[in-house]
């Protein structure tokens, strides 16, 4: 959707942002996989298992709410449990909004020995994600490649409670799973680069298991950070320049570690939850584009006025961040969010998001 005062197209706006220039206004985006299909009268499961429907629903929803194409994907391209042979089922019923792991591929040390790197052409939902990516490429959109961080993927292979226990008691098992996870991510990413070219690929990552609601910065430093460094070395080797990182949940204690290491190229898009103050994020990451951080629970359960007020405050804090700012939810847009609350984000950008011409 083109807002009446827009002086740039979405593509021009994003190009300005990545070139370090002020766009016409604050861009607006959302991680919205299941919301898109529900919005179009389809099921959440169809977002994951029907790439054509999922893509069309995403395009209509993007236009309806005036979103810019960042980030746009339909679920993870690679998954830990499913890709490595576990059992995953589609969301169903009234209260499920994402894929459900019903059986983890790793329960014992012996299971790790039996693990093999998945075939990137057949594993999990990678073939479906590839079909979705082709539609993005055909429309001239960035081709998003979405993975969890190696730490989060490794926990998803073994089950989170088992993996967290192993960080304390069997660190060598964690290292094995981490190595497999990063190799798998890059096997599939290599396929994406071969298919679409490195220039078209936008690598996106989320790291919910690194949240300080779960683990200490000590654990993050020991197990997660080395793999962030390796990830970015390998991403650079592949020639992929665009990177976005959803630093999911409460990660305030990890920010100094990430800011010191800061292994990604600049500017990258750093997405924050409501738990991280945007001014704090800007101070830690002045060369990167901040994205966020409207609390999803308020988008789902609050009034449009409450969402609008949160957006206004976020825009006022984020708008002048040195690396730039994109308004959006602080995590995935709840699939059942009331449409007026989602529209409140659009209206807030319209009312407060403009930069001087």
């Amino acid at each position, binding site marked *: 959707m083109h807002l009446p005062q827009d002086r740039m197209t979405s593509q021009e706006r994003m190009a300005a942002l990545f070139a370090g220039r002020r766009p016409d206004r604050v861009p607006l985006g959302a991680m919205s996989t299941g919301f898109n299909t529900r919005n179009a009268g389809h099921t959440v499961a169809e977002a994951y298992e029907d790439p054509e429907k999922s893509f069309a629903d995403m395009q209509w929803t993007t236009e309806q709410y005036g979103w810019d194409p960042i980030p746009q994907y339909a679920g993870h391209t690679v998954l830990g449990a499913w890709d490595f042979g576990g059992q995953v089922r589609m969301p169903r019923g*009234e209260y499920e*909004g994402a894929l459900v792991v019903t059986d983890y591929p790793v329960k014992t040390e012996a299971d790790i020995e039996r693990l093999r790197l998945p075939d990137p052409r057949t594993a999990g939902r990678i073939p479906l994600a590839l079909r979705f990516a082709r539609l993005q490429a055909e429309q001239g959109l960035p081709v998003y490649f979405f993975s969890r961080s190696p730490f989060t993927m490794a926990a998803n292979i073994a089950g989170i409670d088992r993996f967290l*226990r192993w960080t304390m008691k069997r660190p060598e098992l964690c290292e094995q799973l981490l190595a497999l996870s990063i190799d798998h991510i890059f096997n599939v990413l290599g396929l994406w680069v071969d298919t679409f070219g490195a220039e078209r690929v936008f690598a996106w990552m989320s790291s919910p298991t690194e949240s300080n609601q*779960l683990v200490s910065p000590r*654990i993050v430093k020991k197990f997660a950070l080395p793999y962030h460094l390796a990830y970015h070395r390998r991403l650079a080797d592949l020639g992929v320049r665009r990177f976005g990182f959803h630093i999911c949940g409460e990660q305030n204690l990890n920010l100094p570690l990430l800011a010191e290491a800061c292994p990604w190229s600049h500017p990258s898009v750093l997405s924050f939850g409501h738990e991280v103050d945007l001014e704090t994020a800007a101070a830690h990451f002045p060369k990167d584009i901040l994205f966020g951080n409207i609390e999803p629970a308020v988008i789902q*359960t609050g009034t449009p006025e409450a969402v609008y007020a949160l957006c206004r405050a976020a825009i006022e804090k984020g708008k002048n961040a040195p690396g730039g700012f994109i308004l959006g939810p602080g995590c*995935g847009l*709840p*699939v059942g969010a009331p449409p007026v609350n989602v529209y409140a984000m659009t209206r807030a950008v319209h009312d407060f998001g403009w930069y001087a011409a």
Partner: protein
Amino acid sequence: MDADRRAAFLKQLHDAVVDMDEEKTPRLCREALEAGIDAYTAIMQGLAAGMDTVGRLYEQKEYFVPELLLCSDAMYAGLEVLRPQVKVGEHEAAGKIIMGVVEGDIHDIGKTLVKTMFEAAGWEIFDLGKDVKLERFAQTLRETGADVVALSALMTTSMMAMPKAIAMLKAVDPKVIVLVGGAPLNAEIARQYGADGYAPDAIAAVETAGRLFTKAA
């Protein structure tokens, strides 16, 4: 046994839990019983006291979930030894609580930690697990007459089941205390949903339940 020796035993039990020592804790429990320490005392002043310290370390951000899980493992290893030795009917539970992760949600790590802390605080627990159909909460309340029901959800989608679950529980027993918790929730949403209390973590859950239960009594 003299008081000093008894205190030293209980301190060792406390320390074994805090040190996450799943092997040492049951061994010390057996030694405590052999030395004539009452099983219930060993639970409350050894294992549960250890979990109190663990809770404080969590609040101080010294311990995180991996540490809590291992302390919990140590406590349960000790409980396996001590519980069969507690004389039936001699000690009243602090209260009865039903807990579970609501329908549509399989994330149960938070609920597991909540269970541990209630266990340490001496509550009688009916743990329904994860992805629990809403009717099952109501049915279990009918069957047990529990004082408190604790509902957990990690997803914004699954937390939408909570208002319905709360209404069903209150229809069974208007006086039952319903607590909610999980990453997307906060006190305001808990209030909107009709819950009696909200707890941001396992430690706060026990405190909140205890406070509301005492007030209601």
